[in-house]
């Protein structure tokens, strides 16, 4: 077992462990903080995969913005979301079974695909992945349309969220 595999396994255990805490812990603020841990682990996975840009963006966007928004929302609604009392539905065992069922199905499916055990080849030397991503995002024969549509989506989200927030100000 190589050092890289050990790092991957540790990170994977961190991601999954933290994710389990997110869905089980009673205190919602702790759940949000565990989400931060889990998402940080995902950033480490991106770093192992040499997706430098996505690794830092994961931290900037998820930890720096989305997690903060979650924490704000938890604090605003805390009186209801008190850590007292059960946080799960009465029939919680159905999702457990469903999750295990889907997981088994997916794992069987993944392992049955030929070539799934292969390892990655080295990145072509001189390939700047960030620049290549930029090229892909702006060149017309690649993803310029999704790129611009993403900004329209964000605009729509902003307008929608602001509208919802102003609607009950009056």
């Amino acid at each position: 077992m190589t050092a890289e595999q050990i790092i991957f396994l540790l990170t994977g255990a961190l991601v999954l462990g933290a994710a389990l805490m997110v869905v089980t812990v009673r205190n919602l603020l702790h759940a949000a903080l565990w989400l931060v841990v889990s998402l940080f682990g995902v950033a480490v996975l991106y770093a192992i995969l040499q997706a430098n840009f996505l690794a830092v963006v994961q931290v900037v966007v998820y930890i720096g913005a989305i997690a903060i928004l979650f924490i704000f929302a938890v604090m605003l609604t805390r009186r209801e979301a008190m850590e007292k009392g059960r946080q799960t539905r009465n029939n919680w065992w159905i999702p457990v079974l469903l999750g295990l069922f889907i997981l088994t199905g997916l794992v069987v499916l993944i392992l049955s695909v030929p070539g799934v055990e292969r390892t990655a080849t080295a990145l072509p030397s001189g390939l700047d992945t960030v620049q290549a991503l930029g090229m892909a995002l702006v060149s017309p024969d690649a993803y310029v349309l999704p790129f611009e549509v993403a900004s329209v989506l964000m605009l729509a989200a902003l307008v929608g969220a602001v509208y919802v927030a102003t609607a009950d100000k009056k």
Partner: protein
Amino acid sequence: MTFWNNPINFIGYWLNGVLTGWHLPAVLATLLIYVIGIIVMILFAMTLDIGLVWVERKVVARFQDRLGPNRIGPFGLIQPVADIIKMVIKEDITPDGADKIVYNIAPVLAATSVIVLWAILPLASTIYGVDLNVGLLFIVAAGALGTLAIIMAGWSSNNKYALLGAFRMVSNMISYEIPMVIILLIPTILADTMSVRGITQAQSGMWFAILSPLALLIFLISAIAELGRSPFDLNEAESEIVAGFHIEYTGMKFGWFYAGELLHAFTFGGFIAILFFGGYGGFFGLEKLAAFAWLNIPFVQALVFIAKAMFGYWVIMWVKYSVPRIRIDHMLAFNWKFLVPLSLVVLVNTALLNKILIVLPNWLYVLGMFGSNIVIGYVTVEILRAYGRKQRKAEQIPDPQAHTQEQAV
């Protein structure tokens, strides 16, 4: 390669030889050298941090016409050491109802979020930790961890003031992160790279401060706000919420918030030097002359870098001790209604002009970039003056110029 022109690699090779001589596996030897290098780097930062305590106290004293620490050691130089001993042996109080684990993690995270910035800080052309090709976003990512530390501290203390302070601080930091990220795009466009070292090298002929002075100004303002220093220190406003998010922290835990803030301020001084003043280089081609070849020695470069960073740090202190605190609504309005639009205008201007003017001869290019910034700045000031005049007319406040003339009479 000698010790004098590439000290890090020189010592690295030497250590590698020694360690493999002890029959260590090559991987382990490399790892060990990394660890030693990192510890040296962090200890250097910490030593600097201790020095900064003295510098900060001495400078604030001079700004306020006092002497500052002058009892312990020559010029009070040993004072920070005494401070540290005091902090370590103070009783550590955890308030009732605190969320103990989160409460204890917060100061560590606050310090780590600053220390980790030193991984990408190039002290000289051959003295740097790592040359990340997403270096600029790494700065923002480290800032995100700092924001998280503050909200954790404020929430876990179980204190009204701490919570209010944390909310103010976080809304302050996240708001001013927007102009900062937008301004970070400008060195990226000008240098065509996000690597901190690449940006430094791109400025060997011309500082970005000259190509885009407005960007420098906006970056300085948002850096001060990110640090939560005056005039943006309403997160710890002593007269209203006592100390803000770290009110319940005592001893060394408070010490880490304090030390982290000082080191953060210095590090941002360093980033201002790197992004706009050429970092360890930027001598306008002077270092290529034979008579100034000594400017290429790494230790001289490191000294130049620290001097530039200290200057940036001094400017941040200067602002801190001269400007009064502003109100939160003013702070947010200033960001969203002024800094964000202005930084977007500067960004579009830089992107377009850099593309159009790059074909021109160099002096015309520099003049065009500088001139466009001056024009934008002038127009902005004119718009603000017109708005102010309208506002005063609406509220029937006499024109300040007319007012002063009246008084003079």
